[in-house]
């Protein structure tokens, strides 16, 4: 069951290339706290993400990876540089973006189904069409039968999967994920990684995922962006050339091990183990 675009896609400027679906050019972010020196959170970030690509951002705590994601989501203003998603300058949250948060952040007074419909409701999209899509997404993540349940009746992993459905219901051009599995136990987390790859394969979204876990980044991504400690700069972008579709067994292969070591070395060199 493939869930593809439904024809409602934003008016794209003709110039948007599929190769630069997300464009970050010379991005700087400084915080200016009152009565103290400014903090440089991100410096000169340049990154281009192709349409349909899966990119992860890893880095030690406080390297600004969540800040980068918040700028992409239009939640946090940039200090300098340009950020474009599907050809549109990001200065406020764009309807083309879907986001999965660290916590599922479901509304406890809404059923799972009504929670998933939140973005469609906010953007006043065609109700029937999106109800159908919500139903398909629920099936995709294995939550069929839980539509009428309330969030507290579901396990943490199930809630997070509902959060993924919500991020996809309006068929966004880009899916942003902020450590989406950080709160889950190790078993559920690995299972969710496999699930995520499957969902990504079926929905074809462009994904930017922020994570603490190097193996998770290697397992999921086409490319891993390694950020240096504060101020966050791109230390290296590692292309992960492991065959797809991937299964967890790929992580015990030597090639995966080499990628993990290579990324981890950046952290060791910086004297930070996360």
């Amino acid at each position, binding site marked *: 069951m493939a869930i593809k675009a439904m024809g409602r896609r934003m008016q794209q400027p003709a110039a948007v290339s599929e190769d630069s679906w997300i464009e970050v050019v010379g991005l700087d972010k400084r915080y200016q706290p009152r009565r103290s020196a400014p903090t440089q959170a991100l410096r000169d970030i340049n990154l281009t993400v192709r349409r349909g690509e899966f990119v992860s951002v890893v880095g030690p705590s406080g390297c600004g990876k969540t800040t980068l994601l918040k700028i992409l989501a239009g939640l946090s203003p940039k200090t300098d540089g340009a950020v474009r998603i599907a050809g549109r300058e990001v200065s406020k949250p764009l309807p083309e973006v879907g986001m999965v948060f660290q916590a599922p952040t479901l*509304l406890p007074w809404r059923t799972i189904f009504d929670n998933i419909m939140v973005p469609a409701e906010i953007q006043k999209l065609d109700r029937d069409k999106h109800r159908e899509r919500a139903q398909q997404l629920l099936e995709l993540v*294995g939550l069929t039968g839980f539509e009428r349940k309330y969030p*507290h009746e579901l396990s943490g992993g199930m809630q997070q999967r509902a959060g993924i459905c919500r991020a996809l219901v309006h068929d966004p051009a880009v899916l942003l994920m902020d450590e989406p599995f950080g709160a889950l136990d190790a*078993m*559920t987390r*690995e*299972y969710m990684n*496999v699930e995520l790859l499957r969902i990504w394969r079926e929905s074809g979204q462009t994904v930017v995922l922020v994570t603490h876990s190097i193996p998770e980044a290697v397992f999921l991504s086409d490319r891993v962006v390694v950020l240096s400690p504060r101020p966050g700069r791109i230390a290296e972008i590692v292309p992960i050339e492991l065959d797809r579709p991937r299964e967890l067994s790929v*992580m015990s292969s030597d090639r995966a091990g080499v990628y993990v070591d290579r990324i981890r070395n950046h952290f060791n060199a910086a004297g930070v183990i996360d």
Partner: protein
Amino acid sequence: MPTTEVADQTPHTRAPAPQQPTRRRFDLRERPQLWLVPAVFVVVVLAWEYGTQLLAVDEYVLPRPSQIVEALQRQLTDEQFWGHLWVTTQEALLGFVIGVGAAVLLGTFISQIKVVEATLMPYIVAFQTVPKVALAPLFVLWFGFGLTSKVVMAAVISFFPMLVNVIEGLRAADADRIQMLTVFGASKTQIFRMVRLPSALPFIFAGLDIGIVFAILGAVVGEFIGAKEGLGYLLLQTNYNFDIAGMFAVLVVLSVMGLLAHFVIRLLQRRLAFWAEDTKVIGA
């Protein structure tokens, strides 16, 4: 490092625990209060009934429960009594609706505009410290002996706890939930409707719960000061006539009124704010 077997661990099947069977709601071992609460009532009433006889307490000081029941029966068959009851109910309900309604409107307005909140908060705090009951003579003077002065009293007294709860409730919305809606492009109005208002509901119900009891209090106090009908008036009448058992009977009726209102509000709360059974909310 991930291992291969893990893929078979399907949290899909980890269904939530099944609902507890309703039968357990009446399990006396699970909930000893189900018999302890009535037991305390029976013990107290018996001690009161026989203690007063044993110690020869004058019935003009403290009538026995049996005498109160008798007085209650007398009143419940008296048409005039129902008239008094109806008057007080009207006053309390009208005052409650006006007070609580005004508090919701003003509270919403205040909490949406920072300058307004900063400007009005000191006054609200100052007015809150005024013992509202002390205003009753003034209201009777201004609005007369009829219904209006009691409605005003009930409204004023139920207004403040509601106002504080509305303001606090609208502030209580979770920042992560607001951020989530923001990412998906929600406007201020949508954020208010989809997160702030539902987050405030448990607080609003706490305000309603206190407000209704206060409204009854306000109506009765208003009747004390100057009235020709109502349960407060009846309380004074029975007092003048040394019908102390009759006084207690009126008190019982007033308590039942308050309890009924409380239960109705709790019922609505369970229906409308079902997700927040145990949310800690502030009082008056």
